[in-house]
């Protein structure tokens, strides 16, 4: 997995609340057996009209946001299905961090498996960053994972909380499965004990 340390980039504002995974990547693109190539269909039904032409008003179609690497979004981003295609599509487009007041649980976890940093901040902080993102491509935000801060283009800085294990894995680009396999003996002994206690399982 790609490491995440520090990122300075364009942030796109998406103030809509409850942006769900069907919006992020509609189901017709889930019929793939690969993880790559979904960026072109990110936010497909908001981004393209019925004929497949770009809708100019959609934020990521605007010239100043085409190279966005950060999203500042309304409450409860990523609600809905468990599809990891949502972070795959964000990543493939080039988004490395999403900032909101809250995220749906499964989406939040999925981000960390793909080198994307979801950041939870209080409402007031998200409002400041949303306004900053609305300034366009000259306003570059900085996300610093090590110090757990987001800094607006004006230099206003906000600290965010993050689980230490998730931070460690993301900063070092670690593969979860490899880490868990190092604990195979603990799993072996749990399995042996559980098969005695609950043999019907």
């Amino acid at each position: 997995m790609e490491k995440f340390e520090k990122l300075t980039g364009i942030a796109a504002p998406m103030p809509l609340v409850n942006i769900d995974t069907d919006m992020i990547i509609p189901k017709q693109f889930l019929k793939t057996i690969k993880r790559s190539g979904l960026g072109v269909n990110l936010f497909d039904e908001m981004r393209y009209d019925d004929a497949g032409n770009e809708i100019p008003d959609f934020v990521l179609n605007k010239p100043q946001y085409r190279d966005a690497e950060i999203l500042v979004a309304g409450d409860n981003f990523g609600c809905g299905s468990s599809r990891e295609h949502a972070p795959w599509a964000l990543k493939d487009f080039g988004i490395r961090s999403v900032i909101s007041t809250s995220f749906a649980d499964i989406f939040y976890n999925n981000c960390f498996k793909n080198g994307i940093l979801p950041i939870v901040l209080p409402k007031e902080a998200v409002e400041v960053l949303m306004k900053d993102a609305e300034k366009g491509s000259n306003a570059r935000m900085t996300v610093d994972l090590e110090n757990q801060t987001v800094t607006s283009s004006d230099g206003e800085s906000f600290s965010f909380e993050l689980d230490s294990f998730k931070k460690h894995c993301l900063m070092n680009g670690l593969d979860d499965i490899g880490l868990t396999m190092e604990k195979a003996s603990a799993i072996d002994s749990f399995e042996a004990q559980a098969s005695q206690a609950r043999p019907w399982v």
Partner: protein
Amino acid sequence: MSPKTLYDKIWDAHVAHESDDGTCLLYIDRHLVHEVTSPQAFEGLRMAGRSVRAPDKTIAVPDHNVPTTPGREDPKNMTEDSAIQVAALDKNAKDFGIHYYPVSDVRQGIVHIVGPEQGWTLPGMTVVCGDSHTATHGAFGALAHGIGTSEVEHVLATQTLIQKKSKNMKVEITGKLRPGVTAKDITLSVIGKTGTAGGTGYVIEYCGEAIRDLSMEGRMTVCNMAIEGGARAGLIAPDEKTFEYVKGRPHAPKGAQWEAALTWWKTLFSDEDAHWDKVITIKGEDIAPVVTWGTSPEDVLPITAEVPAPESFEGGKVGAAKRSIEYMGLTPGQKLSDIEIDTVFIGSCTNGRIEDLRAAAEILKGKKIAVKRAMVVPGSGLVRAQAEEEGLADIFKEAGFEWRLAGCSMCLAMNPDQLAPGERCAATSNRNFEGRQGRGGRTHLMSPAMAAAAAITGKLTDVREMM
């Protein structure tokens, strides 16, 4: 010993390893797999030269994008990309030696209906699947939740999941339900009250007389939509109804093992003084038959209400409501019971079980539909067979419904069952998101009885007027 919630008890029984920072490896008893979220996980295993650690605890069934029309055993009758995903699941099940129900098997169906039906889901278990509606299995007092594809690969390889414990929320539904009010109305009303993020960070335990009174099918409907309220999982403590449902199922324990299991299962309840981080109480008698008006499952109102004005909300919800009402083609102040519909969809992991079909058939008996299209998609081949035996299929067909084969179908419209742009649907499924049932399609969520009533009148209808 300090008092524990049901969630605490199941959690404690499954921690295989705990790190100093509280990160745990949670052992997984059952891993359910379907064709859409698993191919990349199996590919990951192959690339790393890894095997499935516990194939006996891993069960696969294609459901999301299989057609629900006859002849689907032949891949030529599927779209090419769907056929590739189903073929990949066939191959992965064979190569890795996991349990499998192909489309040709009468036991095939929606993964969350097949699991309980076959006795794979048992009280006190941990159950995961690459699908958010895994919460369904919580109805048995099993800790069950959806995971992403990377986590699917993690569970396949290690039979564990890296987890931190969630907080405990109690949702109590007191007293009795009024006539015409069902499990679906309970679960939608709870989301209407808490919002789609109200459960974020929590595992919910549903309790109270109205929950205890529900059948196992009804309890599955309630837990199924815990995810729509943002919760990691929904739980209901097992009781005699649970044990009765489980007993004799193909993969349920038998003989001495049954007795041993029963002894443990009977300890699975929240202790009286257990700590709750959040408590919600709703009176059963206050719940009405409800429908959704917008594009979020929290947009819930009694059928007797009107489309709300966006200004009646606060904060970011004002803009979201405005967008929803426009997308749904509605007008603030319009009576919900005046909304005309084109399509009725009865099915899904929320409401595709036998009791759901009985409730809809009860309303439809001897009536004809007044909509362009209506379909029933049973949740499994066995539900379908039972409905045929009970004469329900004939009632549906005589009313003008299409009688389909089992699958997820129009709940998420990955197969050919889709809404056209602007088409409006009364659906028994779980999500009314923009485009969920087809680009531009408009979804109103409701119970099977309410969907049946809507099919007869051609508009959203208070089922109590037909009882």
